[in-house]
């Protein structure tokens, strides 16, 4: 930063000495005040407005303090780190252009706040409105003074978001909601495009810092990614600035309260697009691609907007289309890219903001007073509200580009730029024609606005008599109109320094000599202006004579297409989602199986030679009992496929397979597994049978043959692939860590049964998780059934069968089973057994007693709090593991103690036993909890059974169920 300049005032001095903080404060003001306004929602409306106005007013003061430095051509910075890793810095950067724009944003913002104070009705929450408005102001200010492109795109999206809230402020109105959403979708989508573009720029330029990017124009333009970057950025710009073909959201956004339109759609939101176009002009412009694209789009927008404005019946709609047209004009100017065009563009940004804001406010006053915005109902207002009419007429004339008003100046510069481009001749003709047409159309719609609102007959069908609005409501309009005139007459005195600061910030050394005089002598632009005025008047009256302008129903084709497409998107989303995720478990599982199949089969298919190669023979010979077990396992499995619809039979068959699997484990040297499998088999059978009482007896035939064939094929292929994998795996040499476990089991873990040692020691943590799972399963079953009331599927009449004989035998058996359970538990470390098996062995006889004696009889005499048993078991397992921590070794490290007791002899105590006790309790508790819950389901209050009483004579001895 240069230090050799002279500080003119004290405030400026102060500001300069702490310039970064000033920038931060400038940006923070609106946000802070937004929060203040939101918090102060109980204050009176005027107070709220004052609080709100503080933000722009103080901001303007700060900007004023910066003025000397800015006008001196300096660039002010404030830098904070935010996310340097990705190049996102909280850098604020104010140069002439940003300063000019910030002035615009804050000045019009202040006026709008004042205006809004009187505009909003009693029902509207001023605090909410102004908070939104200030948030928007902050976002817009952020766009303007961001010194980092990523930061800029953040504020960019924030303007979309806050404008969404503002446009939808009257959320009870459907058009407001639609308009808000449309604006959000278009501008938000554009923001995403901009983000992409910014990221590309960053990738090319190596930084998102604006200074770097602006000076990297040549690199950018030379990059092969340039077209992508350009189009993505333009995507953001064109959507924001309502350029064709994205222009339609702007008229739709007129459902917003008028202060919003006055602010967003004249000076800020829509100007953000052209702001960025100007901002990145040094970096992106200067190629044919840029020139043709931007000029064409700008011209198209200019004409389409202007043409539509003529036929619009809504006062604000007309202004909106006019805005579109003027934005097109500005875009086209930046597209032309000549220094003069750029100056004109910057100038017109200012001028348009001033006259358009005042026009919107005037339209708002009219709406406020007449309760309509329909041009067809209005007319002759000059008599009823002469002062407002005068203001509006002046502003309109400025919009039409009538001399002595600011609009004239920039329009004339536009004409000059349009014809003085150094493009090929056809393009020059095109731009010139477009400019001329724009002049004609601009005059025509301005005339229509003025003539049909303030002159002629009317107003018609109004429910009130309009009169002048409150004094304070007019002040903002007055200020702006005065500005229009002042700039129009004394441009050099009023606007020149600002314009120069803005334009030279963009153009730098290329800033041309230009004069802001009203009179430049007789030249082509003046001729075009004249032709425009004459042509415009002729066009308006010609049209008015040729067709009934009031009867024209303007149709926004773009909007309709958009709405239809959006609706289509929702429908498509709905349809596609419903078609994919139809809530079918069958489909979900099918996809899962198919995915797994693909994952397993693809590598095999790609390399079948290696994958299925065997290592020294097909297999090791099988001892013959294996084949019996093999049949025993598979025949019931296949039989289940045939019988599965008859559930009882299927369950019996599965019992066969289960037994065979257990026996196979025994056969293949895994006695512990066999024991576990046997017990689990037993308990599962009981659970299945308990559940079957509450489930239909059989599955109906329902799936079609093709479906079954498809499933069958998938099943077959899956089975083949899994089998092939298993087979191929078994033929490979085996190099496992288990050898070391075998070696270390006895000397270091003091257990002969290596499987049990693994369970309680090497991998005790797995067991830890496993019992937790088991415990939770018990809890889940309990939670699901505790309060559930269910009716059995069918019911047998009569008393329960008397099973006192088996029960009596069971009494003989039970003590022995308990003893066996303890035996298995104690021996587990050295022989097949262990806490888990022992726990189930203890549970099963109890369960059989439930079956034989009935639940009530057992529970009345054998009250056990299974839940706490589980809890205590978990604690025990935990404590046994934690105990080792006291000795400075990790959790679950086993300890070992060889006690020599008198009389009893050697007693081996391993800490693993304590852990196993926890396992024992958890397993017993959870298993019993499940079984007792399922055995003691409460009867439904509403019905005794689902399908009636079993008629013994109609039962099938094949399925055991009643014939249906």
């Amino acid at each position: 930063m240069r230090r050799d300049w002279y500080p003119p005032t004290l405030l400026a001095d102060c500001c300069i000495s702490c310039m970064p903080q000033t920038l931060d404060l400038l940006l923070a003001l609106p946000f802070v005040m937004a929060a203040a306004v939101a918090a102060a929602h109980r204050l009176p409306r005027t107070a709220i407005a004052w609080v709100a106005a503080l933000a722009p007013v103080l901001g303007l003061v700060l900007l004023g303090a910066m003025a000397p430095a800015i006008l001196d051509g300096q660039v002010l910075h404030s830098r904070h780190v935010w996310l340097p890793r990705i190049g996102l810095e909280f850098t604020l950067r104010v140069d002439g252009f940003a300063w000019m724009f910030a002035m615009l944003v804050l000045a019009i913002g202040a006026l709008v706040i004042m205006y809004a104070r009187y505009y909003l009705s009693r029902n509207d929450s001023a605090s909410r409105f102004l908070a939104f408005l200030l948030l928007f102001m902050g976002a817009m200010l952020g766009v303007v003074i961001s010194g980092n492109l990523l930061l800029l795109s953040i504020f960019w999206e924030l303007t979309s978001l806050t404008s969404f809230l503002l446009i939808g402020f009257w959320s009870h109105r459907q058009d407001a909601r639609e308009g808000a959403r449309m604006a959000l979708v278009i501008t938000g989508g554009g923001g995403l495009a901009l983000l992409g573009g910014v990221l590309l720029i960053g990738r090319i330029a190596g930084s998102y810092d604006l200074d770097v990017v602006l000076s990297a124009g040549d690199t950018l333009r030379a990059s092969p990614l340039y077209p992508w970057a350009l189009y993505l950025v333009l995507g953001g710009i064109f959507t924001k600035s309502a350029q064709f073909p994205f222009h339609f959201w702007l008229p739709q956004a007129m459902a917003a309260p008028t202060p919003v339109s006055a602010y967003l759609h004249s000076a800020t939101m829509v100007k953000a697009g052209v702001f960025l176009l100007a901002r990145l002009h040094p970096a992106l412009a200067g190629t044919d691609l840029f020139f043709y694209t931007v000029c064409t789009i700008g011209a198209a927008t200019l004409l389409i907007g202007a043409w539509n404005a003529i036929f619009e019946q809504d006062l604000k709609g007309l202004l909106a289309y006019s805005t579109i047209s003027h934005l097109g004009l500005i875009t086209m100017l930046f597209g032309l890219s000549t220094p003069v065009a750029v100056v004109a563009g910057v100038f017109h940004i200012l001028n348009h903001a001033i006259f358009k804001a005042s026009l919107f406010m005037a339209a708002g006053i009219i709406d406020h007073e007449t309760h309509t915005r329909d041009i067809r109902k209005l007319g002759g207002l000059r008599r009823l509200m002469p002062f407002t009419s005068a203001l509006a007429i002046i502003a309109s004339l400025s919009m039409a580009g009538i001399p002595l008003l600011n609009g004239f100046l920039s329009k004339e510069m536009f004409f000059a730029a349009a014809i003085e481009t150094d493009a090929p001749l056809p393009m020059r003709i095109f731009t010139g024609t477009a400019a001329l047409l724009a002049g004609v159309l601009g005059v025509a719609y301005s005339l229509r606005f003025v003539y049909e609102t303030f002159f002629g007959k009317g107003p018609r069908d109004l429910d009130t008599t309009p009169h002048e609005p409150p004094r304070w409501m007019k002040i903002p309009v007055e200020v702006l109109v005065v500005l229009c005139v002042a700039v129009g007459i004394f441009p050099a005195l009023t606007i020149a320094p600002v314009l120069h600061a803005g334009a030279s910030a963009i153009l730098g050394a290329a800033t041309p000599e230009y004069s802001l005089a009203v009179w430049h002598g007789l030249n082509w632009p003046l001729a075009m202006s004249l032709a425009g005025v004459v042509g415009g008047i002729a066009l308006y009256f010609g049209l008015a004579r040729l067709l009934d302008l009031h009867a024209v129903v303007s149709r926004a084709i773009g909007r309709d297409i958009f709405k239809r497409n959006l609706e289509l998107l929702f429908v498509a989303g709905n349809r596609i989602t419903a078609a994919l995720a139809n809530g079918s478990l069958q489909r979900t599982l099918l996809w899962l199986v198919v995915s797994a199949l693909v994952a397993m089969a693809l590598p095999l298919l790609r390399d079948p030679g290696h994958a299925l190669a065997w290592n020294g023979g097909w297999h090791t010979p099988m001892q013959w009992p294996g084949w019996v077990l093999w049949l025993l396992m598979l025949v019931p499995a296949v039989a289940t496929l045939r019988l599965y619809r008859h559930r009882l039979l299927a369950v019996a068959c599965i019992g066969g397979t289960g037994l065979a699997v257990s026996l196979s484990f025994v056969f293949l040297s895994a006695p512990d597994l066999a024991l576990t499998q046997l017990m689990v088999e037993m308990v599962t059978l009981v659970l299945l049978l308990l559940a079957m009482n509450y489930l239909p007896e059989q599955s109906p035939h329902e799936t079609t043959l093709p479906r079954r064939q498809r499933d069958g094929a998938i099943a077959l292929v899956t089975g083949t692939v899994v089998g092939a994998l298993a087979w191929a795996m078994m033929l490979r040499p085996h190099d496992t860590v288990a050898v070391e476990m075998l070696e270390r089991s006895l000397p270091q873990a003091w257990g002969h049964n290596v499987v049990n040692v693994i369970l309680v020691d090497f991998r005790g943590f797995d067991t830890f998780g496993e019992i937790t799972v088991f415990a939770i399963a018990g809890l889940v079953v309990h939670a699901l059934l505790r309060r559930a009331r269910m009716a059995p599927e069918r019911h047998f009449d009569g008393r329960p069968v008397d099973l006192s004989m088996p029960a009596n035998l069971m009494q003989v058996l039970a003590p022995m089973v308990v003893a066996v359970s303890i035996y298995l538990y104690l021996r587990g470390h050295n022989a097949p057994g262990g806490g888990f098996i022992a726990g189930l062995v203890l549970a099963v006889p109890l369960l059989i007693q439930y079956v034989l004696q009935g639940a009530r009889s057992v529970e009345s005499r054998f009250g056990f709090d299974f839940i706490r048993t589980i809890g205590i078991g978990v604690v025990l397992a935990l404590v046994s593991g934690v105990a080792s921590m006291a000795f400075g070794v990790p959790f679950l490290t086993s300890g070992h103690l060889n006690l020599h007791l008198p009389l009893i002899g050697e007693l081996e105590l391993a800490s693993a036993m304590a852990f196993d006790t926890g396992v024992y309790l958890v397993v017993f508790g959870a298993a019993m909890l499940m079984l007792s819950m399922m055995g003691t389901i409460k009867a439904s209050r509403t019905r005794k059974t689902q399908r009636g009483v079993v008629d013994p004579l109609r039962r099938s001895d094949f399925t055991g169920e009643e014939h249906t």
Partner: protein
Amino acid sequence: MNHLPILPVLIPMAGAAASLIVEHNRFGFTVRRTVAWLAMAALVVVVAMLVIGASSGHVDAYLLGDWPARLGITLVADRLSVWMVAVTTLLACACLLHACAGWDARAPHFHALFQFQLMGLNGAFLTGDIFNLFVFFEVMLIASYGLLLSGGRGLGMRNGFHYVVFNVTASSLFLIALGLIYGLLGTLNMAELAVRIAQVPPANLALVKAAIGLLLVVFCAKAALLPLYLWLPETYARAPAAVSALFAVMTKVGLYAVLRVSTVLLGAGAGAMAGYGQSWLLVLGAATLIVAALGVLGSARLRVMIGYLVVWSAATLFVAFSLGGAGTMAAGLYYLAHSCFTAAALFLIADLIRRRRGAAGDDKSIPAPLPGRTVPGVLFLIAAVAVAGLPPLSGFLGKVALLASTPVAHTGLVWSTVLLSSLMVIIGVSRAGVRLFWRVPAQIHEAGPVNPAPARPAETAAAIVLLTCVVGMSVFAEPLLTYADATAQQLLDTAGYVDHIRGLVPAMREP
């Protein structure tokens, strides 16, 4: 002896056991809640200490049972694990707060199941053993069944059945993969596996690929990747609010596992197996982005929509992780935390909305009055901004970080799908907001009788806590991304991990 790594597993387990023991009419709810919060507080302290430890870059490993890593089970508290545990813990605090407003009294065993769920999650994140990972997956899943179903009824039961069966099937596939892996490689410790995978003879390569592929399928099923996401939206939508909020981290477990496997087992040093399946994950992730965004657009119910948002964020993470670079991985890790908090917050907010709308519930297509809409409105707005990836919140930052670090070769696919789906999500979420908050009938009685449930301050507070996390993530994005970046670097240093774990020396046993 530093016992820190085991404590995130043991504390919730002790909490659960204590909850079970005090689950008796003799003790009131105050006792149960006190127990739950004590456990939670202890966990927070431990996790804070773990974070401090991991931030130094030190990998804290814990040899359970004092066996060398190859024989026993090892816990590994590296940056990634600690990151995941920390996210889970923060999330859990908010969920517990929400549940303590009253749901815990309606769902039997809530506190025990909740603590068990935390135990499963933390275990899954901390373990360095692939079978132990399976076990903790199961702990986490079965606890989630309990949380999902306890106190539920009606269609929720059928949905729960879907969820359970799907997960049980996936778990079986997990076991098949583990069986193959052990059968082919002879070990279960991840570091050992990494060494052995790098040396797989060509003859076994196809088999190992099949096993690893199956493993990835299973993880993708848990993380809801196309076409395995079908179960998620409905399930999450039907879960109680506190539970679905906690479930926000459940898909992330699958993603975590994908990340772990693809860095440790399929890292650059894995020879022929290096990067196996990553291109599939990328393409499927990109496709999921679009499909999930369509789901967001097409869902009629708010909570289903949030479910699709979960799928969407998971898809973003798949893309981030499968790109394989440190930058994208770091962006992904940051985004992962963000998406946990955001999705959870949205579920809690959806509950606030649903309860205020009476019979209309969370069905967006029914216009219904929304009394007291300001607070949920503001919360929804913030959460929606975050979830849709709009600035300035963490969703935007994470996404920008991801896009910025996307390698050139994949830029087209990743950028177009991410940005396009973002737009779709913006459209969908804004429509939801408009329909719920703005399209309210003029007359109160238009939508039938309304009896909004009383608003409980704790429930709102829980949502605010989560959104505070989101905002905090945005403000402190730099330090968080720095951590994430260091995490990614650590993850990509497979050799360092492997050597560290294999070189661990037991306290007293011979190595």
